[in-house]
């Protein structure tokens, strides 16, 4: 099973490197005229996707995504003796927001199917990402890419922000810290899974992650945590990022385990000093001249 997975993965990488490069170039040239749309995202998100964009998305999808997710995004399930193993889940109904998150954070395409995708450098341009998102959005109704006013805290007045930070902190502690830890440093999940650190996640991606529940993460749709409350959470996360460290270096913000390690470093230093205290000083072979 593992072997099969790997060989499929390798094949797909080949395809990507050879064809995708050409295609990306060709499409990039063709789409020059559409650059304006890419630079004005708020508007681009609101405009309904054009047929041309969907077509471009389909092309990109076929080349880059269909190996795991199927030609029509229906997902691929492989079966072996033990049972079912999913290559790639169905993308019907995941919406444009999921695509924007997964590709925008570099999680997709995966290096290898079957593992949890880490955030990495994205391989698509903004415009390609939007095209794929537009295509996936046609597969079934799902959350759209959020508007800037949904997630951005820029427009808040000081008073609003202060209130949002306090409320967001409470929602964060109730819903997020269990997995992502009190500082957003991340934590362990069953069977090698993990909740990633959210220290560097952009507000848009935080919003999309809540909305779509990427990978094994739960969904926090707008019916669960309202859009305003999501923005409050983002305001809180931003506030603890900006907050200067009160107590000195944070030791990775993982709690008492790191503190224990530093305790033993402290003990090692003190034992070193104890060695110095008890060590013998330099001696000389000279004799003391007795003054009569």
């Amino acid at each position, binding site marked *: 099973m593992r072997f099969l997975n790997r060989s499929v993965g390798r094949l797909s990488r080949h395809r990507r490197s050879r064809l995708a490069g050409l295609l990306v170039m060709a499409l990039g040239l063709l789409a020059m005229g559409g650059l304006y749309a890419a630079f004005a995202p708020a508007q681009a998100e609101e405009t309904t996707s054009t047929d041309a964009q969907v077509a471009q998305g389909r092309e990109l999808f076929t080349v880059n995504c269909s190996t795991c997710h199927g030609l029509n995004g229906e997902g691929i399930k492989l079966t072996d003796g033990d049972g079912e193993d999913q290559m790639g889940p169905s993308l019907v109904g995941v919406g444009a927001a999921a695509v924007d998150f997964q590709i925008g954070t570099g999680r997709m395409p995966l290096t290898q199917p079957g593992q949890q995708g880490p955030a990495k450098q994205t391989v698509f341009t903004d415009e390609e990402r939007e095209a794929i998102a537009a295509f996936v959005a046609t597969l079934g109704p799902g959350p759209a890419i959020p508007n800037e006013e949904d997630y951005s805290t820029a427009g808040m007045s000081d008073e609003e922000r202060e209130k949002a930070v306090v409320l967001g902190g409470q929602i964060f502690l109730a819903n997020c810290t269990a997995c992502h830890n009190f500082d957003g440093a991340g934590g362990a999940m069953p069977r090698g899974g993990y909740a990633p650190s959210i220290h560097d996640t952009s507000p848009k991606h935080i919003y999309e992650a809540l909305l779509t529940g990427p990978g094994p993460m739960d969904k926090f749709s707008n019916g669960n945590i309202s859009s305003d409350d999501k923005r409050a959470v983002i305001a809180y996360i931003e506030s603890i990022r900006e907050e200067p460290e009160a107590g000195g270096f944070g030791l990775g913000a993982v709690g008492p*385990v790191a503190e224990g390690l530093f305790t033993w470093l402290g003990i090692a230093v003190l*034992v070193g000093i104890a060695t110095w*205290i008890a060590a013998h000083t330099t001696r000389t072979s000279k004799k003391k001249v007795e003054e009569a």
Partner: protein
Amino acid sequence: MSIDTSKVADSNRDEPATAKGPSKVGAAAGWADDRLGLAGVMRKNLRKVFPDHWSFMLGEIALWSFVVLLITGTLLTFWFRPSMSEVLYEGSYSQLRGIHMSEAYASSLHISFDVRGGLLLRQMHHWAAMLFVAAMMVHMLRVFFTGAFRKPRELNWVIGSLLLLLGTLEGFTGYSLPDDLLSGTGIRAADGFMKSMPVIGTYMSFLLFGGEFPGESIIPRLYAIHILLIPGILLALVAAHMLLLVYHKHTQWPGPGRTQENVVGYPMLPVYMAKAGGFFFVVFGMTALMGGLLTINPVWKFGPYDPSKVTAGSQPDWYMGWPDGALRIMPGWETHIWHHTISWNVFLPIIVLPGVMFTILLLLPFIEAWITGDKRDHHLLERPRNAPTRTATMVALMTFYGILWEAGGNDIIATTFHLSINQITYINRVLIFVGPLVAFLITRRWCISLQRHDKEMLLHGYESGVIMRSPEGGYSERHLPVSEEHAYRLVAGREPDEVYSIESDADENGVAARGTRLQNLRAQLSALNYADNVQPPTAEELEEAHDHVDHELELQSSLAHPADGHQFDGHNLHDADEEPLR
């Protein structure tokens, strides 16, 4: 016995002090002594001898961090409010402004953000607590590995063990006081631990919490325990520990002039007053640096305790990590019987196991004394290698502790090294049984081979690294005799080990003593302890070996230059006379 004391100054001054006329100091001392009569005691103890060795300073780290704890703790009580009544936070940490929280948590925030130096005090107090327990453990290991716990010091071992236990409890109660999310989660778990005790558990929990968890009594109660009850006992035990230390005098490493009957070292006044006093400032400075630079327990980020909230990486402080690890690797066993529940999955690892481990720790000196049957006083330390089974026993216990400790951080290990918690847990479930056993066997054999190495050195000298070619063309490595002082150090204080056997208790008629099961066990343990040890060479063996070396040297005397090889390795400097005093 006679010790050559001719070379030792009975005062550490260069010339004898001359009695001076009446001075102000003398007058003040006289005034005090007229009323207190302390001159007798002080005369005896001001020049108490401290042997110089780094490992004798480990207990001092613990002592001084305890002093730091008392100082910072007292200051913290001026601002901390141990109350669980609900207040609305209006302080300067804006992320929590307007949130309902306990007064204890609000005052912790106040100390951290609105009192100048308050956060420093909090962090110093916490770091010092972590160092305190760690230093006690390191000190305990030193005492055990060197055999310093043997008669007449067993009671001081017991006191030390109690200090370790109380220090841990003190740490746990302190961890629980700020009433932040992490400390509340700790108390929540402690409530679960108590409830796991059959019959009395639920009632214990209700009494401690003043009703149902969490109630509003637990923090004031823990506070009373934390600042009054346990520190009081700790202080008394520390005093007893040090009085006994003074009474028994320090142990020392054997060496030239250092015997069972004396202590050689520096006097308390002035040298050790300065060294130990200086060390206090070092420990204080070190905790201040840690408190200033390293965040510990950022309570403001955890938020106030709420029984419905939790954070990933919920861990106790490091010294509670090992029973927590035991909890994590324990399978989920529970017995339901006659409408009652016994949760072995909690009761065994968190109530029974620490109790058993502590009892073992307490009894270690007595178990060893029972096996050896040795009733003599021991003031000379043993090198760990010369007690292979003792050393291996502690290493096995350390391995057991270490595996549980690592299991207590399994989630952090999983995320840091990209492993699966499940697999780590399965591996730990095996390792906890196999690890200590393997560690025991390896350590024991290791010690024995080190002993063998020592004996080789005594009998045949050390390997000089000089290759000699004989006229016949054969090659051999020169072995050179070790210096007299080094040789003495290797045999000093060592006696041949005696293996106890039931036969040796036979009466005069040759009838073996009634072999009770206990005596059988003792004989078996004694064999395990001593049968495989390498015994120190006897005078005859040494004599014979020396003859051999002399003979070899004679053969080379025809050479133009001495072929002792010293010209290559620089060891010719290592004459006993020039060896610095140790």
